């Protein structure tokens, strides 16, 4: 009898895990979708202020960050392929490069944010209520959107770090890599959202 009442047999279904991740990515897109909606409403209401606001951001730093994220998306995809081909060492190196790119992104974000803080352009600052309304909303949106995105970068970094150690101790291998695949999917999502944020905040003037 005791044999029959053991655990539920370990049920492994990689298809299900991937489907679940895709559904979760849907919800993340909708989360940002709400913000894009708010952005478009206020952009339509205050086009001139949004124009001025975007001039105060550095397109160079934004572009460097975009390249860093696009490059990291490539390296994580390569890490997955390396894992499928059972090249453990290469996979670990590529995950490490991805994490490095993420750190570069966050470092640049830190530089950008602290410059804005120095100028008093942050929600709740004494200066903000004296700005034009559209200007104020632009910077509120800027901090809210990039802040939420940076939070996602950090979550993605945690996921990929877990993957890194699981690859190292053999938890992820060439026959079982769905966790790395899902981590990579999440990382692509983080990248994709930035691909929308960059033009909305920096390029459209």
């Amino acid at each position, binding site marked *: *009898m005791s044999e029959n009442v053991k655990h539920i047999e370990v049920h492994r279904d990689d298809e299900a895990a991937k489907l679940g991740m895709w559904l979760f990515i849907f*919800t993340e897109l909708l989360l940002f979708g709400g913000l894009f909606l708010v952005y478009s409403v*206020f952009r339509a209401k205050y086009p001139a202020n949004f124009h001025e606001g975007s001039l105060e951001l550095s397109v160079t730093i934004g572009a460097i960050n975009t390249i860093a994220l696009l490059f990291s998306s490539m390296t994580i995809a390569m890490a997955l392929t390396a894992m499928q081909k059972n090249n453990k060492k290469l996979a670990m190196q590529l995950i490490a490069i991805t994490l490095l790119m993420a750190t570069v992104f966050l470092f640049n974000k830190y530089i950008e944010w602290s410059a804005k803080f120095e100028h008093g352009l*942050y*929600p709740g600052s004494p200066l903000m*209520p004296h700005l034009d*309304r559209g200007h104020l909303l632009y910077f509120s949106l800027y901090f809210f959107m990039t802040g939420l995105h940076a939070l996602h970068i950090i979550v993605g970094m945690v996921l990929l770090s877990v993957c890194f150690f699981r690859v190292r101790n053999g938890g992820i291998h060439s026959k079982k890599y769905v966790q790395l695949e899902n981590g990579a999917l999440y990382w692509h999502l983080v990248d994709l959202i930035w691909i929308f944020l960059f033009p909305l905040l920096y390029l459209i003037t």
Partner: protein
Amino acid sequence: MTETKKIEYVSYLDRQGEYKGIFSWIFTLDHKRIGLMYLYAIMVLFFVGAIMGLLMRVELIAPGETIMKAQTYNGLFTVHGIIMIFMVVIPGLSVIFGNFFLPILIGAKDVAFPKLNRLSFWIYITGCILAISTQFLKKGPPDTGWSFYAPYSTTTGTNVIMATFAAFVLGFSSILTGLNFIVTIHQMRAPGMKFFNMPLFSWAIYATAWTQLLATPIIGITLLMLIAERLFGIGFFNPALGGDPVLFQHLFWIYSHPAVYIMILPALGVISEIIPTFCQKKIYGYKAIAFSSIAIAGVGFLVWGHHMFTSGMSDQARWFFSLLTFLVAVPSAIKVFNWLATMYKGSIDLKPPFLYALAFIFLFTIGGTTGLLLGSVATNVQVHDTAFVVAHFHYIIFGGMGFAFFGAIHYWLPKMYGRMYNMKRATIAWGINFVGFNLLYFPQFILGFEGVPRRYYDYLPQFQTGQVISTIGGFILIAGLILMVINLVQGARHGEIAPANPWQGSTLEWQIPSPPSLENFDEAPVIKKNPYDYK
């Protein structure tokens, strides 16, 4: 395998796993035990919310201050709304009966992600604790109403941040549950169980899960914006900073209208299970009912504007939202017609689950048709924000989802616990509930039409008759509910041993022993082409 099973059968309730006692519940991965834990949590919260409702009714028994201060009243209706909506009816049927029966109905051993399921439960409990703590924290319970309308919610001194954060956490749990159920239905169906062999409750859960998944993130981001608004003054919803309070209403209702379908769709599914069983007849229009669930979920996304006819919208937007609101009534009506057609010439057995289903159809029809009154722009302007809306909403959600819930627990309790409750007492409790419910809420239609606003602490003396009838109905209803719960608890603990299939049901859950074993199906289930093949 079959030999050992004959020697000893262990149900999921008696099974000893690696954890003992209470930890075998806290750490359980079994969808049935998680379903039961949700049941206990939600029953407790339901009674907390119901007592709050009763206190409000007592306050309204006479004009002026009766038993509490106005600010207490504001806190009560807000927390009553938050508890009942975010913790009782939105999860309600889908986390309890969806968890317990969805895998069984599709011939699966568990949900697709058992660990995620356990995580959603504990996130849910965290959200509940956060929300209830707002009652006791220093600044007092939120007084914004459950809808947290800006700009008041951005300025009031009460615990709005904690309450909205609780709603955010509960939403996260809801998303994870929905995600789990979608993947379960896609990946875990038993071999031979095609989509159109699934019982209709699974279809309803499927439609609900998609709505949970796609709508909830919007309220999530909205509540985050509200929290940021309060903490940092980001100004999105504050006109003084250039923001737009109507934008908050849009974002809020983009979620909260589909949320009404998250509440009611599983209820429609339950009724579609109960009616064929107690008529011993094949359900009429299986595909029409299945597709109407999907249609309600789909169109339900596009009607949120009917909550805002008086908030400032263009005329085009108003007639368009009104038209869509009328459209969403069509699939609901299709279901009602199909249920009635199923009963026609069936061998009807008036057992308590079926009585609750009948009460559901009656109350849901009243709630639905008064919803059309609210959906047409002209009458909406007249009755907007009056007691009429309160009555309509409670007819749909309490009369609809609530009575379907009671029907479901009476229908499935013998399967969940392997014991039967007292039929006679259950029938008496049903009668009391039905009478009490109508006494409680019907007068509010009339009061609303005469102009009594909702959420008001006081009223003019000429409205007292209606208010008194309503309060009396409240006491009758709570008495009926207490009788019902006592009967169910006694039945579950000491009732007669129930046979595996007490109602001669034909869906899969009735083909396995009561209570089910850990893996539900010790032998591979036989999948029928039509889940309701009675004749």
